[in-house]
Each structure stands twice: as C-alpha cells, then as structure tokens.
C-alpha cells in the first residue's frame, strides 16, 4: 500500500482561525470598552466619531477574512461545514433583524442598535453549528 500520499500536516487551520478570532475580538472589545470609558469623548458627536465607528468595524471585516482563510486552508469537508454554518447564521440574523426592523416600524417594538447584528450573528452561529454535521444539503 502507498503509505504517504501527502506529508503529514503540522499546520492546523482551525487553531490559526481560533487565534485570529481571539485577536480580532479582543480588539473589538478593547475599542468598545475604551469608548464606553470615555476615552474618545472628544471625538464622539463629530466627524472624528466615524474613526471610532470604522475602528470597531475593522475586526468584523477581519473576521470575515479569517473565515475565508479557514475555508481555503481546510479540507473539503470542513470547508462545506463552515460554509453551511456561516450561511445559516447570516440568514438567521438577517431574518431576525428584518422582522425586528419592521417590528419597530409597524408594531412599536423597542429600538435595537444596528451593531447588535454582529453578536446576533455569532449567537446564531453557536445555535446552528451543533446541528450541521453533514456536507450534504
């Protein structure tokens, strides 16, 4: 039997993904905490406030990049599982946010800030991922 089709891989895409995720989330939390602590009070309310808004959004974009890298570096099974989880979580978040948005307009629902869609996405991801166990649709 052929014993070595491919050399053993010491590189773990999942571990790299987790490390990147932790780093990006720490940055997200850091900027948010500093803003809440009042460090950026001189910027808030003016054009400089956009710098803070973009700074918080950068790790979100970076997280999407990390997910794409995970998909590119993983094997075909993991790639499909991650894709399915991402689509289901994004779809769930969009549906919930659409319902709530029109609920605010038509049913007097209390206002929720737009940034909440990101934690909503990850909550949805955590919810759907235990049920995604097959690459088949």
């Amino acid at each position: 039997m052929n014993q070595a089709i491919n050399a053993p891989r010491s590189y773990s895409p999942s571990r790299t993904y987790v490390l990147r995720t932790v780093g990006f989330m720490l940055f997200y939390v850091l900027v948010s905490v500093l803003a809440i602590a009042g460090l950026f009070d001189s910027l808030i309310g003016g054009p400089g406030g956009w710098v803070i808004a973009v700074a918080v959004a950068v790790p979100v974009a970076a997280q999407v990049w990390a997910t794409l890298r995970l998909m590119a570096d993983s094997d075909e099974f993991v790639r499909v599982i991650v894709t399915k989880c991402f689509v289901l979580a994004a779809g769930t978040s969009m549906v919930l946010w659409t319902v709530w948005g029109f609920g605010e307009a038509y049913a007097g629902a209390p206002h929720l800030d737009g940034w909440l869609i990101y934690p909503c996405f990850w909550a949805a991801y955590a919810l759907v991922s235990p049920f995604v166990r097959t690459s088949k649709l």
Partner: protein
Amino acid sequence: MKNRLRVLRAEAAWTQADLAERLGVSRQAVNALETEKHDPSLDLAYRISALFDRPVEAIFDNAHRASTRGAPGDSQG
C-alpha cells in the same frame, strides 16, 4: 455514498487520525466519509484509491452502474 473505508482502515490497523494524516485531511473528514455524511470529491476519492491501492469503485459504490445497484435482470444472470 456507501463505502468500504472503515473496513479498509481496520485492515490496515489505522485509527481515523492515522488515515486522516495520510490523506492530508481532518479526522472529522474521515469520520464523515465513513459514516456517509460526506461524499468525497473526485480528487479525494483518487487519493483514497491510491492510498489503498484499489480502484475507486472497489472502495465507493457506484450507484450509477447497473451491476452495483441491482438492475432488473441481474438475478437472471
């Protein structure tokens, strides 16, 4: 897709992790193949075929070939 991967792996006395390492995929991928939760790409099927030195159809059932899906008239020889 029905397959003989678990049997072949057992014959080689490999764990799922051993096979995964030889194929360059995750252990989860091997488990998904064995439990028919993942149909391999042609590339992965060829890699498995080469590893066990058997034709692809000796490992994975070809449901589209009459001889493996019990076509009418099979039992009549």
